[in-house]
C-alpha cells in the first residue's frame, strides 16, 4: 500500500493535485509545483509532511545558491580554526562535512519530505546540476570520496514561480502540477479554513469584489489568496458587513500593494456594480 495524500484540514488540495502528489510518491520522482504567488505552493510540502507524518527538510534557493549546497558543505575554515586550538580531530575531514537538506534526507533512516523552494531563483544551470542526484538519489562527497545513497527515497517537492524557464532535461524527470488560481467555490472553502466564523453573505460579497479586482486588466499585481485571507480578517475585525461592501471596498490597501493599482481602481469607481 502506498502513502496517500488527500489534503489536510488546513490545506485543501484539488483532486488533480492530490493525484500528482500520490504519483510522485509511488514512482519516487520529484514533484515540480508551479503557480501564481500565494496559491500555496510552499504550504503543500508542509501539508504532505504533516499528513504522512514525515519529517521535512527545507532548502530555500537563492540567486547565489549552488546545487552542491543542498547536498553538503565542507567547512574548511572551521577545520583550519580547530587545527589551531585542537578542539576536535582535524585529521578526519568527515568532522567538517555538513549536510544540506537533500543530503540529510538521503542519509536518514525514515522517509521524509524535501522542499526545494523557488528553484527558479538560482542560476539557469542550477536544476541541471541536480539531475543525477535527483535521479539516482545518491551523491559523492568529493573531499572524502564517500558515496551516499538514499536508504529510503524521500519525496522531493520543488516549487517554481516561473521567473525562469526550467531546462527540458530537468522537466522530463519530474511529475508536474500547475496550481491554477482557485475557482470561487474552492476559494470559499479555503477561506473558511482561516475564518471559520465569517458569515456566508459577507463571504459571497467579499469574493465577488475580490474576483472583480482580479479581472481588471490594468492591475500590475493581482491580489492573491493570502491577501484575500488578510483582507477578510480585516473586515471581520473591523466589524464591517456586506452593506459597506456595496458602497466601497474598505481596506483596499490589504489587497493591492502598488500605488498605481490603487489609483487604477479609484478611476474605475464602483464598476463592480455592473456585474
Amino acid at each position, binding site marked *: 500500500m*502506498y502513502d496517500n495524500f488527500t489534503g489536510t484540514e488546513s490545506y485543501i488540495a484539488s*483532486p*488533480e493535485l*492530490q*493525484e*500528482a502528489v*500520490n*504519483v*510522485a510518491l*509511488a*514512482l519516487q*520522482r520529484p514533484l*515540480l509545483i*508551479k503557480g501564481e504567488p500565494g496559491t500555496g505552493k510552499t504550504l503543500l510540502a508542509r501539508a504532505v509532511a504533516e499528513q504522512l507524518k514525515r519529517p521535512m527538510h527545507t532548502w530555500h534557493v537563492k*540567486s547565489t545558491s549552488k546545487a552542491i549546497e543542498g547536498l553538503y558543505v565542507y567547512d*574548511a*575554515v572551521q577545520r*583550519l*580554526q580547530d*587545527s*589551531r586550538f585542537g578542539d576536535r580531530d582535524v585529521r578526519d575531514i568527515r568532522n567538517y562535512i555538513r549536510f544540506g537538506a537533500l543530503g540529510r534526507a538521503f542519509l536518514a533512516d525514515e522517509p521524509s519530505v524535501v522542499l526545494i523552494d523557488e528553484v527558479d531563483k538560482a542560476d*539557469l544551470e542550477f536544476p541541471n546540476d541536480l539531475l543525477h542526484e535527483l535521479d539516482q538519489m545518491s551523491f559523492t562527497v568529493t573531499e572524502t570520496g564517500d558515496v551516499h545513497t538514499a536508504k529510503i527515497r524521500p519525496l522531493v517537492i520543488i516549487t517554481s514561480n*516561473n*521567473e*525562469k*524557464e526550467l*531546462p*527540458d532535461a530537468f*522537466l*522530463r*524527470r*519530474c*511529475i*508536474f*502540477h*500547475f496550481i*491554477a488560481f482557485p475557482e470561487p467555490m474552492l476559494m470559499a472553502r479555503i477561506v473558511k479554513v482561516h475564518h471559520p466564523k465569517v458569515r456566508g453573505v459577507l463571504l459571497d460579497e467579499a469574493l465577488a469584489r475580490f474576483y472583480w479586482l482580479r479581472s481588471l486588466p490594468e492591475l500590475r499585481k493581482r491580489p492573491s489568496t493570502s491577501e484575500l485571507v488578510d483582507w477578510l480578517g480585516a473586515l471581520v475585525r473591523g466589524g464591517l458587513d456586506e452593506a459597506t461592501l456595496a458602497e466601497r471596498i474598505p481596506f483596499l490597501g490589504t489587497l493591492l500593494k502598488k500605488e498605481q493599482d490603487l489609483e487604477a481602481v479609484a478611476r474605475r469607481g464602483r464598476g463592480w456594480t455592473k456585474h
Partner: protein
Amino acid sequence: MSTGEPLFLDFFFLLRRIGVPASTREWLMFVEALERGLVAASLDRFYAIARATLVKHERYYDLFDQAFSHYFLGTRPPAELTRAIEAWLEDPLPLPTLSPEELAALEHLDLDALMKRFEDTLREQDERHDGGSKWIGTGGRSPFGHSGVHPTGMRVGGESRSRSAVQVAAQRRFVDYRDDLVLDTRQVGIALRKLRRLGRVEEATELDLEGTIEATARNCGDIEVALRPPRENQLKVLLLMDVGGSMDPFALTVSRLFSAAHAAQHFREFHAYYFHNCVYERVYDNARFSSGKDTLELLRWLGPDTRLVVVGDAHMAPWELTARGGAIDYHHQNDEPGVVWLQRLRRHFKQSVWLNPMPQRFWTHPTIALVGQQFPMFELTLAGLEQAITSLRQSA
C-alpha cells in the same frame, strides 16, 4: 491493467501530433503509473495522472484537455481546423516579387466579397498550401493568407509584410513584451550570459581560501585569514527597442530577447527604453509611448562604460534619418535629424551594437545602410547575438 502492453500509445501520439512535447521517458513514466494500478478504473485519475506525467508546462494544459476530450469523449476539437491552418502559415515562404503589371492584373475585391470567399475557401481547403493563387497559405497571390501579395488581400495570422491587407483576420497585438513571455528565452539567456564581465571592486568580504592557506603557512601555522572582495558582474546594459509598425513581424523575436535580458539577473544595471523608427529627443518607458525620458538626460545619467544594444530594423523613410522634422509621428517635430541623434549615441557609449531582425540580405536598403555606417550591425538571430556579444566584450 495488464503489464507490458503499450496501452494508449495512440493517445501519446495524438498529444505529440497536436504539439504537446511529451517524450518517451515521460511516456514510460506514465506507463509505470498504469502498471502499478494507480489509475485504477477511474477516468478522472487517468486525466490527472496522464497530465502530471506527460505535460510539463501549463501552456500545454489546454491542448492536453482538447486531446483528452477528443480521445475519450469523441468530441472533435472545434479549433482543430483553424489551428492546422495556423500551423501551415507559421512558417512563411519568402515574398514573391511581382511587377506592377502583375499586381494590376490581380483582381480587386470589396470587403464583403472578400469575407465570403474567405469562408468558402476555408470550407473547401483541407491541406497546407504555399504559393499559388487560390488557397489559403503563404507566399502566394491568393487574397487570403499572409506573406503574400494581393492588392486587396486579407491577412490570416502571420505578419504584415506587404501592407495592403484590408482586414486582419487574426491580429497579433503589439504591447509591452515584459509581462507574459517566457517562451524559448532560455537559449537567448545563455547567450547573454557570455556578456558577464566579472570584476572585483566591492569590499573584501569573501574568504580567500588559497590566500588564507598561504598566509597561514607563511605565518608558521598560526591562522592568518585572507579576505577578498566578492566577484560581481560590473556590466551595465542599455537596451533601446524599435516598436514601429515595420517591426510588427519581429515582435516575437524581439520579445524573446527582451524577456531573456530582463530575466537575466546578472547585469549590475539593466535599462530598457522604446523608440519609434529612430531615436530622437525622447525615449519611452513603454511601447505605447505614454511616458519617457529625455535622451540627453539618459546620456548624462549613464556613463560611457554602459553597453548600448539597439534593436531595430532601421527600415524607414530616408527623411526620418536625414531631415529636421522628419520623425514618423505627425505631432513630433524634431529639431535635429535622426542620424545626428544616432551619432550622438554612438559617440557617447564606448561599446554599442545594433541588432537587426531583418535578414542581412536586405541590408542594402538606404536607411539600413546608413545606420549600419554608424553602428556595428548584427542579425537578431542566436548566431548574430553571439557575434554582437563578442563585439561588445572587446576592450572590456
